């Protein structure tokens, strides 16, 4: 019995090794392990005929051989499948048909949401204000005197027959509205379209996007303005980004500065983008002018404020290297699809 078992094992293993495809292997498997007529199955079924004294030994051996054959079949199957797969041709570069295309968000929207998330995480409230504004909120409340050049027809889009209505020239117009509505302390941002009476060319556009942020409260200082601007700059352009502030006149802040960051394209070494200066101007900022706080119903003796504004359109142009500002408002899908 033992002898014939060993012979069976030897024969089976030889045939398994000799099976050259899955079909041949299955034939071998049925021949030995088949439920009805498998040769090994038959032996196992007939174990009861073995003398009782030999039975444990023979039984153990038979089981051992069964497991061995099963294992060999499994191994051979894996090898055969692998060989089959290896021989097949598969083009991993081929595209799915029909082509799957996603829609897109406008590039300024993407930057706006990125910054909104950033400021919201810092505790800023997201607010908005009307695009068609009054000269009060857009100018007077922001300390822009009646004879200031910005109020000229040449610079501002006024509404016909409504001399006090205009298309807002900056998102700062939300400042006094928000102070009146929410009081202090408050930290908030607002973004959206702004308008200037300007002829359009590759570098100028009468409609553009800004993001405005401001903080009012006790002990709000210039150091805080620097702290916030440092944080934004590093968020946008990386940990090593430096911020440089230079005086710039805006009637609604005192002092007013423009903020530059080290050029992220040349790391400050100078390139065409930064006009060889190593710096990119990306925001205007300052401490809120006491006149503005007063218009917002706040006592400038107790409360101070900081404010800053980014050109979202400019940020997008810098980020993607877009050199024609008109593309933003073009609704051209060849442009929009890229973002």
């Amino acid at each position, binding site marked *: 019995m033992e002898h014939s078992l060993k012979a069976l094992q030897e024969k089976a293993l030889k045939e398994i090794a000799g099976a050259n495809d899955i079909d041949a292997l299955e034939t071998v498997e049925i021949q030995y392990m088949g439920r009805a007529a498998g040769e090994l199955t038959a032996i196992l079924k007939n174990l009861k005929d073995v003398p009782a004294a030999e039975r444990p030994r023979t039984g153990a051996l038979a089981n051992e051989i069964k497991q061995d054959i099963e294992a060999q079949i499994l191994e051979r199957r894996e090898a055969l499948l692998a060989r089959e797969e290896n021989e097949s041709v598969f083009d991993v570069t081929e595209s799915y048909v029909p082509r799957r295309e996603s*829609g*897109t968000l406008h590039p*300024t*929207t993407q930057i706006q949401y990125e910054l909104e998330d950033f400021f919201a995480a810092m*505790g800023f*409230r*997201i607010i*908005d*204000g*009307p695009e*068609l*504004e*009054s000269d*009060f909120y857009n100018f007077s*409340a922001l300390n822009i005197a009646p*004879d200031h*050049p910005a109020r*000229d*027809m040449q610079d501002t*889009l*006024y*509404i*016909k*027959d409504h001399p*006090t*209505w205009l*298309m807002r020239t900056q998102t700062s117009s939300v400042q*006094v*509205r928000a102070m009146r509505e929410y009081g202090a*302390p408050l930290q908030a941002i607002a973004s959206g*379209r702004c308008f200037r*009476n*300007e*002829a359009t060319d590759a570098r100028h556009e009468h*409609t553009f*996007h800004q993001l405005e942020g401001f903080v009012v*409260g006790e*002990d*709000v*200082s210039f*150091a805080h303005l*620097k702290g916030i*601007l440092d944080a934004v700059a590093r968020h946008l352009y990386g940990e090593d980004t430096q911020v*440089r502030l*230079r*005086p710039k*006149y805006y009637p609604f802040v*005192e*002092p007013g*500065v423009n903020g530059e960051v080290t050029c992220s394209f040349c790391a400050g070494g100078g390139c065409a983008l930064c006009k060889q200066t190593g710096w990119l101007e990306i925001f205007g900022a300052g*401490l809120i002018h*006491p006149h503005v706080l007063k218009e917002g119903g706040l006592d400038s003796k107790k409360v*101070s404020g900081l404010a800053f504004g980014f050109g979202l359109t400019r940020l997008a142009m810098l980020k993607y290297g877009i050199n024609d500002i008109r593309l933003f*408002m*073009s*609704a*051209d*899908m060849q442009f*929009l*699809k890229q973002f």
Partner: protein
Amino acid sequence: MLISFSWLKELVTLPARVRAEDVAKRLSLSTVEVEGVRQQGADLENIVVGIIKKIEPHPNADRLRVTQVDTGGKNPLTIVCGGSNLRVGQKVAVACVGAHVRWHGEGELVELTHTTIRGVASEGMICASTEIGLGERFPLKDEKEILDISDCAARAGTPLTEAFGLGQSAVLEIDNKSLSNRPDLWGYTGIAREVSALFKAPLVLKTPPAIKTGKGIALRVSVQDTVACPRYMAVALKGVKAVPSPAWMQERLHASGVRSINAVVDVTNYVMLEIGQPMHAFDYDAIKDARGAVEIVVRPAKQREEFTTLDGHKHTLHDKMLLIANKTRAVALAGVMGGDLSAIADTTHTIILESANFNARSIRRTSNTLSLRTESSARFEKSLDPAQAEQGLRRAVELYKKIFPSVEIASIVADTYSKKAKSLVITLAEAVLQKKFGIRISLKEVRQIFERLGFGVSVRGKNLRVEVPSYRARDINVSEDLVEEVVRIHGYEHIKAALPKIHMLVPAHAPLHMLARALKMRMAYENKFHESVSYAFVRAGALTALGLKPENHLMLSHPLSEERPYVTTTLAANLLEAVEKNQHGNDRVALFEVAPVFLPEHLKQGVDDGAIGRLPYQPLHFGCVYSDKNETHSFAYVRDSLESAFGAAGYDLKFIKAQEGARWWRANTAVDIWCADKKVGYCTIVGRHTQGLFGISHEAVVAEIDLSLVAKTNFRVKSYHVPSPFPAVTRDVALVMNESVQYADVQETLTHAHALVKNVELFDSYHGEHVDAGKKSLAFHITYQSNERTLTADEADAAHKALIAKVVHRYKAQVR
């Protein structure tokens, strides 16, 4: 504005180590934008003074000469030259080998080498002014003329830069825009004051002496509009002549970008550059009356009055423009430009010198209306200090005396200034600096900063009492302004960054913002639309094509282009234009926009205008267009996209067939969109006529929804059902019915046809071949499932049979 570093250094004593670049950097960081530093004379290297010793004819060319020129070396140089004005003993500019010249004043700079001209070796070049960049200073009278510098004292061999005092003369280029709020910086004096404070260097400002009144010419000035002209000063000077001004003055004007004309005019420009005060000199003979008296009237122009400025241009004026006139005629456009008839001429011997102050707004209006911008108007536009007029007049008289020693004051010094402005005194507390900036700076240092900037300062305990000088009255009004002075001079880089100490706010509930954002994400990333951002302004044609009346829209008072003067009330106009623009390159045009529209008739809903009124209501709208050449169910695609995008944002939309709609909607294709109990928008296929008006070639679907309204309805909380653990069974059915039967009704009937129906899904909608005319075929997958047990095939079949019976009966349908 150009600032010559050497001139600047005469007004402020800088340590020798301070270079022009250092000044430029500090000014940029603390005062104004310096765009660059240009080294003047850098192009004049290897160009020296030469003296012509000998002139001989050229053996091979009639028009050329062979000259021997002493350039300070051992031997004279042999130079071939074609100049028309060569003479022996003449001093000329000689470009030696290695110099850079511009041949005949044109093209790029070229390096000079040894050359042979018609067989004669030439060791250099005798230059014309235009060939070495001095054409503006020494204009050519004749094409062949070389630069004659015989009146220059320099010896042969002296570098030209040195001979002209150009040596190491750097020029700072200042961005005029950054000066808009600092009228005091429109002259060297103002810049010098800043530099003095920034480098802690002493100022060297001399006050010109008062003018001694003279006799001979009766001079009277009257001002009709003292708002437009707060101050007018004038004086008559006898004994001037339109000769070239001295070299040092020409040099300074040149370095500052102002062309030298003659000594009489140059002095006025020089004073303007030095002090920032524009001046004007009138030819006495041209403005005196018959008795030799001068009566100046500062008056508004008459409507349509004509005036010719000294550049020869004739202007038609209006009554908001200010003129300087005598009894008979206008002689200058106040603060902008003089007239041609009273300009300084070769015959001029006596002048009336004007130093005035004009209202910034009036000057800006005049200059804008006439598109006439001058150095003078640029300064007056910024609001000049009236006190400066007097300094200007004194300084000009001082300079005329220096140039024309025999000059006489021939009149009184006329001055219309009555009320001297009281100077402002502001108290600045030491603590404020610390609190607002977080910097520690001693009161002594603060005091020095103010003193160097020309403020009067006294210390009162922990406070400073600061008196604002008249030339800063324009930009310094409150203590915050003073704080800025200290900090910017001290340097913004010295303020340490810090984040505010934590202060938490309860976030405002902003459903509209959240809706807009969720909607945009879903429309783009799930429904494959592209977000468009467009103008708030539209064409009249686009509005009328949409059945809207342009006259019901707000209009820009000065439209950017005649094309889009209307402020829009719908997003559909620009979106449909976008379809036309995109349809050529894209089979599938799918765009959406989220933006406000501007409704003039809904004032009550608008926000306040800060005064007593309200602004037009500006609800936030969502609009989309879809036009796909490969899609047969565009409308359903858009409607389903809206349903899923708004649904995901938490708002359930209902689409109800519009009973009556706009004329531009394709008949029978429009739905009203409802959210809760509010009608919030529409979705429609564009009517064929309107499609043509927009030039759109393929069927387009448009939807527009008022998000401000949607956000006011209740946000839906999503509901869910416990999933059944038992398997579902699916059966299909295709039903043929009249086309007039609405899918939504059938869907509703099927869903409620049997208790075991779990889901109903349309998988085919068809009419055409094999379906009778006027009929359509709808095919559904119906899913049956129980929450209690596994359904048997028989149970499912029985339910399916009951369902079919119900729907067939209800809609007179046939099973296909």
